[in-house]
């Protein structure tokens, strides 16, 4: 069993597991942090951005002013933003049988994997994961396609040139493999390969392994996966949460008894408490509004935003923000809000109960009904005429490189009355803000990451006790910035097996047994005998049938009756056809009892001679020797076949047959 690691990002994993005869990809996360190296894509012409100076090397020999722009001491690529894809050279992606998706954030690279690689397999995901994943992809494509950029910068990727660029561009890895965003057509084609599954549904893969998604508590429809055969069990833990937010709670007990547990998707903010961050979010928001400023919340269109809206729903009245308009701007804002209300089965108990009333499970329905929350597909159209300030705007993309958020940064960045509150943990907020510097607006960083922290995960592992843990190498040492915090790493016995991008791990696994089915006819013909108290054995001779990785044993067909042979005399000459080999023997032949038995069969003249290892019996009348030892019996008998067979059968009486 092998694990191929195609992504180095611990929360956006992409691993391939080879297990028995199947090749299973676990998630295909897209590392979007690469876009931080690019200039933002403004929705309307930005004179500030277009006036940024181009970059020329200090000695003036390399001139890339067309491709690279400088802003407040940082260099950005002026081109269509590009993403860092999962590794595609480590193994042939067309051999992948299935892709298991754990949550909608971990599937954004799907079109790159399923399209143009020869992939012919099936993708498994829950319905909310598929629907919301589709929305997030649609949004991404929309953000990119509505501001087409003619230029595609490639010169800076030249190895010789990249070497002399200022950091972080200099240190960016695999820049040649970075790719532009996919098209909607590719998204649709990729998603048409998805087969829907429900929690605890058992899906058979080629009869060899069974996979099953379990609730992971992190987002709508998010799952961990169990990959198992009759005797081996691998658990794949991706983004999971033990906090009570909107999704169904995490199923922990089903992860028990794993041989190997692949652990990814822990919190990216191990020191930030989500509840504390939520409080800070609310108070900063209220403070800014009261002072007459606007609040900008860069966020994804699904996930934490539901919790933020719910929190605000309770907070608005008490903070007397009842008249402040809240705007949610995204091409998929409406769909995201609508979809969130129809997945009752995937919600926590409290929200499920609401549906039984019947009421919408999320209170944002009421916010919309009472006109407190308004959603728009973009800043163009209705929004521009209905927009009132001060207000709160939720919009994407959290990287601040594309989407409507770019417009609000340009619009509000110059005033210190306004505040930008970062809630998504995927991007460093300083890096995100870099191309907007110098900035007058206030910046508040309250990353809300509900995924498991190190304390929770070590408690969980103690509970479920996997034999081996595999995890990204980042989890095996404290974060670089807090190297003394040994509590911010995994300490396990045996130590976890770390992986990094391009690792190939041999998982410590010895398969010993496989399931076979004994057909009823054969089962009925078996004769068990008790060998030790509570343990019986039976010798089995059967024909093995293997089909679709399922094995069955059935009775040996009776040989066809020998056609009456004309050469009767020859029959004796035919060597024996051995259908059933003799069983192995075990035990010992006790001397006294054996002598008594011999006597019963008329063999009385026995001379017993003691040897080092046992006895030699001399059957004087028959001139035959029997050597009896603890672990062997030797019958020396000349020319007397009937006697030999009699003796044989007498000896066998004392032995167990296996």
């Amino acid at each position, binding site marked *: 069993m092998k694990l191929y690691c195609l992504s180095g990002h611990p929360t956006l994993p992409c691993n391939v597991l080879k297990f028995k005869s199947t090749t299973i990809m676990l998630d295909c996360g897209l590392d979007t942090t690469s876009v931080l190296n690019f200039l933002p894509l403004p929705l309307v012409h930005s004179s500030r951005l277009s006036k940024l100076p181009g970059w020329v090397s200090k000695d003036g020999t390399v001139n890339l002013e067309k491709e690279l722009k400088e802003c407040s001491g940082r260099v950005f690529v002026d081109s269509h933003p590009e993403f860092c894809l999962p590794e595609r050279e480590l193994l042939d992606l067309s051999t992948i049988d299935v892709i298991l998706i754990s949550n909608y954030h971990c599937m954004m690279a799907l079109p790159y994997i399923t399209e143009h690689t020869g992939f012919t397999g099936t993708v498994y995901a829950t319905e909310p994961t598929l629907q919301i994943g589709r929305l997030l992809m649609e949004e991404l494509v929309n953000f990119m396609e509505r501001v087409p950029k003619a230029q595609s910068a490639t010169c800076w990727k030249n190895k010789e040139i990249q070497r002399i660029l200022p950091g972080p561009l200099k240190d960016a890895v695999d820049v040649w493999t970075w790719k532009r965003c996919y098209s909607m057509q590719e998204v649709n084609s990729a998603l048409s390969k998805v087969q829907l*599954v*429900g*929690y*605890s*549904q*058992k899906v058979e893969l080629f009869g060899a392994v069974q996979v*099953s998604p379990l609730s992971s508590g992190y987002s709508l429809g998010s799952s961990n996966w169990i990959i198992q055969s009759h*005797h081996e069990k691998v658990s794949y833990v991706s983004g999971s949460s033990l906090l009570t937010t909107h999704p169904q709670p995490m199923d922990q007990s089903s992860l028990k008894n794993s041989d190997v547990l692949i652990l990814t998707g822990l919190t990216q903010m191990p020191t930030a408490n989500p509840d504390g961050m939520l409080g800070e979010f609310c108070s900063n928001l209220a403070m800014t509004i009261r002072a007459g400023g606007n609040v900008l919340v860069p966020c994804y269109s699904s996930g934490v935003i539901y919790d933020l809206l719910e929190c605000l729903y309770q907070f608005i009245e008490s903070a007397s923000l009842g008249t402040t308009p809240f705007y949610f701007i995204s091409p998929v804002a409406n*769909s995201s809000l*609508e979809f969130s209300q*129809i*997945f*009752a089965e995937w919600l926590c108990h409290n929200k*499920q109960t609401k*549906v039984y009333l*019947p009421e*919408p499970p999320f209170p944002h329905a009421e916010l919309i009904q009472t006109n407190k929350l308004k959603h728009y597909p973009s800043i163009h159209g209705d929004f521009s005429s209905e927009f009132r300030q001060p207000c709160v705007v939720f919009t994407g993309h959290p990287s601040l490189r594309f989407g409507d958020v770019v417009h609000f940064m340009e619009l509000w960045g110059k005033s210190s009355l306004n505040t930008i509150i970062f809630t998504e943990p995927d991007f460093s907020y300083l890096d995100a803000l870099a191309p907007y510097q110098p900035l007058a607006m206030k910046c508040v960083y309250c990353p809300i990451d509900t995924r498991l922290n190190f304390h929770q995960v070590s408690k969980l592992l103690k509970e479920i006790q996997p034999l081996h843990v595999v995890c990204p190498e980042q989890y095996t040492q404290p974060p670089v910035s807090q190297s003394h915090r040994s509590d911010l790493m995994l300490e396990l016995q045996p130590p976890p097996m770390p992986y990094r991008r391009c690792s190939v791990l041999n998982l410590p696994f010895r398969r*010993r*047994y496989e*399931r*076979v089915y*004994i057909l*009823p006819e054969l*089962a009925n013909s078996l004769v068990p005998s008790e060998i030790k108290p509570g*343990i*019986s*054995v*039976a*010798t*089995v*001779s*059967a*024909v*093995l049938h*293997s089909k679709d990785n399922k094995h*069955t*044993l059935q009775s040996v*067909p009776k040989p066809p009756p020998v056609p009456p042979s004309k050469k009767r005399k020859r029959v004796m000459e035919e060597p*024996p056809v*051995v259908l*059933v080999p*003799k069983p*192995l*023997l*075990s*035990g*010992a032949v006790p001397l006294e009892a054996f002598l008594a038995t011999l006597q019963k069969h008329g063999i009385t003249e026995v001379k017993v001679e003691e040897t080092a290892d046992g006895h030699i019996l001399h059957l004087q009348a028959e001139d035959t020797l029997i050597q009896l030892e603890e*672990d*062997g*019996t*030797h*019958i020396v008998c*000349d*020319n007397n076949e009937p006697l*030999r*067979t009699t003796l*044989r059968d007498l*000896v066998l009486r004392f032995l*167990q047959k*296996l």
Partner: protein
Amino acid sequence: MPEIKVTPLGAGQDVGRSCILVSIGGKNLMLDCGMHMGYNDDRRFPDFSYITQNGRLTDFLDCVIISHFHLDHCGALPYMSEMVGYDGPIYMTHPTKAICPILLEDFRKITVDKKGETNFFTSQMIKDCMKKVIPLNLHQTVQVDDELEIKAYYAGHVLGAAMVQIKVGSESVVYTGDYNMTPDRHLGAAWIDKCRPDILISESTYATTIRDSKRCRERDFLKKVHESIERGGKVLIPVFAPGRAQELCILLETFWERMNLKAPIYFSTGLTEKANHYYKLFITWTNQKIRKTFVQRNMFEFKHIKAFDRSYADNPGPMVVFATPGMLHAGQSLQIFKKWAGNEKNMVIMPGYCVQGTIGHKILNGQRKLEMEGRTTLDVKLQVEYMSFSAHADAKGIMQLIRMAEPRNMLLVHGEAVKMEFLKGKIEQEFSVDCYMPANGETTTVTTNPSVPVDISLNLLKREMALGGPLPDPKKPRTMHGTLIMKENSLKLVSSEQALKELGLNEHQLRFTCRVQLQDPHSDSDTLHRIYKHLKSVLKGYTIQHLPDGTVMVESIVIKVSSSADDTNTKVLLLSWSYQDEDLGSFLSSLLKKGLPSGLC
């Protein structure tokens, strides 16, 4: 031999009061727990005393599964759990769990408040009963206990309707509940995988019907409604709310829109309206088209259809009213029917099946004079139309489901005996499986023949697979040998050598040595060579070696030659073999005794 037993307490050769007991692998389940619309006495509910004469049912049932929210499938549930007594798990899908208590409450109100019955379950009992419900998701494998697992499949029919697969070890039963094999305006078609259950328990409401295309029926329905409205009549459509109402509402809504009609359409009571909310929130259970477009336009937000008030029934002019219940046996639909029955301009459209004994059933059979409570009679002058809109599978659909699931046995419930008989014949003929149709209280027993799952050591399996080659040769089946170790609950199949090792047993070697005298006037080594040649020619397909140390080996049998001391022409052959080679060793010793043929060199 393991057995599966099925006993209907209701719905055996009948429609209504669905309640089927199944015993499988030592587990006992109750499938559905319905009431009978045709009775107002004890026969209304299944006879639970069949399970136990006294005391609670908890000890006798491992779980109860409800297939959908129609009262003939869940109407007796609070009675069973709270009044007879059952505290075990009750499984149903989320939409069923949401809607079922509302229908039960409605049923209770009609029975207790309107008819004044006492000794009936209370609102609190409905609540307590629902607390025992565990929601089921589609395709989720729910482990009821260590051995019993259940899995729900989509059944169409009504929102949240499910078929269930019940599995213990390798034995399984599928119960369909009510299902529909063709998608309609708001629901999808039932689907199941090739799960090959030992018994498929199917409803058979439309066992003998093959229905024409849905489109024709819809056109017919709209035409009739339209004509009636045009001549100023009132149209009553008794429906089960929720369910058919939603489909017909969608139909009328689009028709009204297209034809620009103005006559009002009403829902009776808040119930149906509330139901529309459920449909909106459980949109994932509706059909593909509705799910796809719900963000743009939710099909269950009706523009033309408004809530009904009792006083509207006396309003002049045409109108269409959807009212519950669907069989005109009580409630608002019956009240409106009484009001409108006298006018021949009016029309009642029965969109579903009506159980015997209900007014719906009577008028569908052409009865024009009805005896009502209080010894009054009612003249039925309005037009009575029947439109089969109830979403049950027809004969074609049932056959289609059998083809999908490939059951080993069929069992029909929820249908009329005569019709079942016909379908049974068809099934047995087409699929050559046994088909049963037990009456209520009658037990069908099916013996199963499950394979025994065993863990085979991979070494043994791989050895066999390697020897057998990639493809099994049907002409030359290879036999494999091993030892099955039975210890507590585990069954392990290993090679005999490994079995000895695992059980900590020593191996006992049994050997035989035989001397055979032979007349052969050659040197010892020549004789040995002649023996070698001889055996080579006789024993085809055996490994025979002539070793340099002066022995011949046949498989693992050792043959040595020495001359007799007194006569060099008399050779003494020494044969030695172990018990494992007994057959061959015995054969060789008698073969060599006969001497060597001449002509060997």
